[in-house]
């Protein structure tokens, strides 16, 4: 038999393929086995969970019943307590109210007495002050009346003096005006009569005379 290289290669290839197939089969078997184990384990765990839940449910039921009973008990006790408390509170309030009223009455009495006393004191004070002020005012008015009389006398004298002064000034002013008027009338008379009656020759002489006077008085000195 001739063993060729191709034959050898074919054999090696087949062997290889078979080896690979074998390996795959082993792997698949392992996987399936592991899956099976896992499912079995899961089933166990689920079973445990169920048991725990059932137990918990039962216990919760029991607790609920106990609680309900306890609540009923507490509720009935509480109702009784509340009734007692309301009664006690009412008593306390009545006591407080009575005390309060007594206190208020006492205070009112005290306040009333104090108020009456204060009013009497105040009235007395006001009366005293009024009498005192009245006396002071009366004294002041008497003093002022005396002073006013003096002032009036002094004022009258001042007014009289001023009036006399004004009359004197007015008299002087009028006299000055009368004198001015007389002077003006005299002046006008002289102007009208004397001015016309002075001859031209005399007028010329008066002018030359004025020049001479001016010369004498140094008017023409440069």
């Amino acid at each position: 038999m001739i063993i060729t290289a191709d034959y050898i290669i074919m054999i090696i290839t087949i062997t290889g393929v078979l080896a690979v197939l074998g390996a795959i089969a082993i792997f698949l078997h392992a996987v399936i086995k592991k899956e099976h184990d896992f499912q079995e384990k899961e089933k166990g765990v689920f079973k445990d969970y169920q048991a725990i839940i059932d137990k918990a449910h039962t216990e919760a039921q029991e607790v609920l019943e106990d609680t309900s009973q306890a609540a009923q008990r507490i509720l009935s006790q509480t109702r009784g307590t509340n009734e007692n408390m309301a009664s006690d509170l009412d008593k306390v309030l009545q006591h407080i109210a009575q005390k309060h009223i007594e206190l208020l009455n006492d205070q009112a009495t005290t306040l009333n007495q104090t108020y009456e006393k204060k009013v009497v004191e105040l009235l007395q004070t006001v009366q005293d002050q009024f009498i005192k002020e009245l006396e002071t005012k009366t004294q002041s008015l008497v003093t002022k009346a005396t002073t006013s009389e003096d002032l009036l006398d002094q004022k009258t004298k001042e007014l009289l003096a001023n009036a006399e002064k004004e009359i004197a000034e007015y008299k002087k002013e009028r006299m000055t005006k009368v004198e001015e008027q007389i002077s003006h009338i005299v002046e006008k008379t002289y102007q009208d009569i004397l001015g016309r009656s002075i001859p031209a020759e005399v007028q010329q002489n008066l002018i030359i005379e004025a020049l001479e006077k001016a010369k004498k008085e140094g008017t023409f000195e440069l």
Partner: protein
Amino acid sequence: MSQALDLQPLRSYLRTTYDMRMVLAPLEELQQAFYKQKQPFIETLDKQIPFPLSDTLKQMASKEKIDLANPTQAQEFFVQMQKAIQQIPVVHVTMSFQPTIALINTMIRWLSENITSFVILDFDIDRTLIGSAKIQFNGKYKDYSIKKRLAEHPMDVANQEQTNG
């Protein structure tokens, strides 16, 4: 030409401020004729300036040795004359009546005899003065009027006027 122009030849022409204006006007006319019409001064004097002023001005120029045919000399002479006339001192007289020529001449004569400087008169009329005058010269003022004397001594004036009358 002398420094100070002698205005004495113009005395009869220059007695009052009115006269002064009447002399200054012809002198201005001489200047205008020369500048505007180029007319010689001598020709203007002969043709436009009234006699005897024209003759007096010629004589004054001659006395000052001014050749009126010489425009420069003549112009300078007349300008100087204008300035000198404008600077003549004025005696202001206020009196109660309008002055007559006779009074003006009398007053000028008196001023010429009694005041060395050349002066002219200026008049104001105030009828309230009654008589005499108020005189003002070179910043000095005097009131010799009868009005003032009357105000100061009424009886004295009345007696004096009665005596004069």
